[in-house]
């Protein structure tokens, strides 16, 4: 299957997760991605281990984010090596980085320099907080951005204190926004020949991610965010929206009518809330009633009455139970990739499907500098 970005060359100076997650998407869509890594440690994510798991010498996170890419090792502070990188940049479609403000200038890969080398380049940069103001030099780490952007106030129950999302959502969303900007500029480049500049910050991405609740805050006169007392899954939505324990597990209920739910579940007390407004205004007491009632039977007993009525509900699963379902198996969501030394590992595939085909790739993660010589030769650096 031909992939849509075949023929596009991306030179990626980014490290850790935000930038590399963007170039992974571009790679899976068919672009050739060359990581430029410093000698010694390379991308520092190589040594950022999850739960002490070492996979062929490197972290699981690094493998997940950097498969399907090549690695070119260069010390940008060394004049001769930098010239070689410049020669590569001259032949690229996209240059990207996620350095803190000022670093790209010091390394000689700032926008003006790169544009002078290649006037049609798409130059994409990702920062923590933008390039101006009192926060510009702060470290741009996912948890810190979740903490200052108000995101930790939205999850968990009232009284639980700040609850962050246990996944680097801000890194991933800012990376996704960077990829969107790059792709939009690539479209303009192939249709008009014009290059472009794309800038994204984790702070701006974190705020747009919360566009519903941020807009709500401005609309309702700045009322504080109040989460439900129990079974919370959204601070601004009424009952039944939430996750509830059952006799043997848990069930999620999305939006729906409380009296209808009362009928379906055989819970007479829920019939006392006929007004739609009460589902939000009295959500804590409604959720209490629901929680007590749902705890009396198994998840499958509740699904058996709710699903035929098309009430929005789901069993809360873990990966093991999900992976055993037929619905998961037919998605072929897991692929195996191979490194050049023969090491193989399992990971997820790109979630986008094109013309009824999945965007899979068997190419594993590059060793630091694995493709330096090959690239130098191919691009006459």
């Amino acid at each position, binding site marked *: 299957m031909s992939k849509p970005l075949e023929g596009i060359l991306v030179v990626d100076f980014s490290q850790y997760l935000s930038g590399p997650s963007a170039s992974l998407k571009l790679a899976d*869509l068919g672009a050739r991605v060359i990581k430029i890594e410093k000698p010694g440690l390379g991308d520092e994510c190589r040594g950022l281990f*999850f739960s002490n798991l070492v996979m062929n010498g490197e972290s699981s996170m690094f493998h997940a984010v950097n498969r399907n890419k090549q690695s070119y090792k260069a010390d940008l502070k060394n004049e001769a090596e930098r010239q070689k990188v410049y020669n590569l940049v001259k032949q690229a479609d996209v240059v990207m980085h996620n350095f803190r403000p000022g670093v790209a200038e010091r390394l000689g890969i700032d926008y003006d320099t790169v544009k002078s080398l290649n006037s049609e380049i798409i130059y994409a940069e990702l920062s923590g907080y933008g390039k101006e103001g009192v926060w510009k030099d702060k470290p741009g780490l996912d948890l810190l951005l979740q903490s200052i952007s108000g995101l930790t106030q939205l999850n968990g129950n009232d009284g639980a204190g700040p609850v962050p999302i246990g996944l680097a959502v801000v890194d991933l969303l800012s990376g996704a926004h960077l990829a969107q900007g790059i792709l939009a500029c690539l*479209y303009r480049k192939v249709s008009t020949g014009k290059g472009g500049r794309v800038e994204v910050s984790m702070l701006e991405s974190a705020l747009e991610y919360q566009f519903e609740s941020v807009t709500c805050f401005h609309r309702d006169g700045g009322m504080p965010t109040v989460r439900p007392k129990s079974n919370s899954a959204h601070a601004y939505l009424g009952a039944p929206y939430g996750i509830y324990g059952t006799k043997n597990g848990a069930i999620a209920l999305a939006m729906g009518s409380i009296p209808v739910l009362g009928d379906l579940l055989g819970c007479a007390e829920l019939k006392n809330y006929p007004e739609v407004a009460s589902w939000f205004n009295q959500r804590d007491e409604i959720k209490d009633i629901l929680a007590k009632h749902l705890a009396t039977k198994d998840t499958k007993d509740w699904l058996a009455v709710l699903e035929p009525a098309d009430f929005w509900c789901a069993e809360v699963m873990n990966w093991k139970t999900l992976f055993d379902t037929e619905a998961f198996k037919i998605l072929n969501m897991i692929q195996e990739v191979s490194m050049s030394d023969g090491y193989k590992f399992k990971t997820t595939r790109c979630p986008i499907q094109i013309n009824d085909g999945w965007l899979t790739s068997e190419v594993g993660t590059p060793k630091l500098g694995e493709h330096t010589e090959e690239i130098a030769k191919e691009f006459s650096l």
Partner: protein
Amino acid sequence: MLPLEGITVLEFAQFMAGPSAGLKMADLGARVIKIERPGSGEAGRQIALKNIFIDESSMVFHTANRNKQSYAADLKNADDLERVKKLIAQADVMTHNFRPGVMDKIGLDYDTVKAINPRIIYGVVSGYSSVGPWAKKPGQDLLIQSLSGFVNLSGNADNEPTATGLATSDIFTGVDLVQGVLAALVQREKTGEGAKIEVSLLETTLGLQFEVLTTYLNDGNKAPQRAKKGNAHAYLDAPYGIYETKDGHISIGLTPLDVLVKAMGTELPAEFADKNTWYVKRDEIMAFLSEILVKETTQHWLSVFEPMDLRVSDVYTYKQLFEHEGFKTIDMMQEVETSDNITMKTTRCPIRIDGKKIFSRKSAPKPGEDNAIIEKEFNL
């Protein structure tokens, strides 16, 4: 010139995932026309947060559908359908999130549309993909977070499964749709051919967990273990987490434990000297840190850690954030206005192009608000 100027997108999609994709394309310069049923319009107009409405439509609808036009058409009416087909013939992209089979019944399935316009990019959003036993189940954000294991990552060890309190699956699915559509537009410039792009909430939400799933798949399938208190990531070492202080909280990101403890002016107990214990004994270490951190104010600790460039931060509410100079600098808010002159403050596009922020004053349209202009302009 915005990068997608000249591109026309027809949005048959409803609720959040598809419309959030349309919004991003609109902000990047595309013209996005919602195709809606006459009268009531798309179902998402009635989904409200805190029961807040702007006009006949909810604030949430206006948030996700600003900067778009609306063309009302009854797809079950032959004349209306004919006009929509004429519009499709002149469009670059169309998106929908109907359950599998619905577009076939209407007669706007990919094969039919491709015959009308071979250059079109046809984007589909579903809950669980178009095949398999779950294909016709309702695909809704919280349900997908719950099915996909995502809810097992947040909150503390003893908490119930904890969802993100915002539509994370919808938002990321919309993002994947945009990426697929834009990549196909790039390819179309070379080949002249359109494409079908499909995304599902389930696949996106699994893709979103790629780092932790790669860990799970290669560590012998160990279930994720959330920290006992202050959990911020099931798979990361201490000190990663949020801690109470004397007057609030402090977040501590990736910071070597020994450096942190030294900065706190104390000694790392010998039992935690080996770096391998920082994950294995995470709960004990976090409890040890908590006892010290709670004795001083957040500002005290920030004034100790920040000059050392340790990765720490205060924890803000919206009020605290919006009053901060750091927030004001980024100019993130904009005012939008409906055709009845009702204004609303909302966020702008987070992507800057060619050194410029992207603003747009147009709020969401009423159903069919642009029928006359569109019929004339596209000669329907």
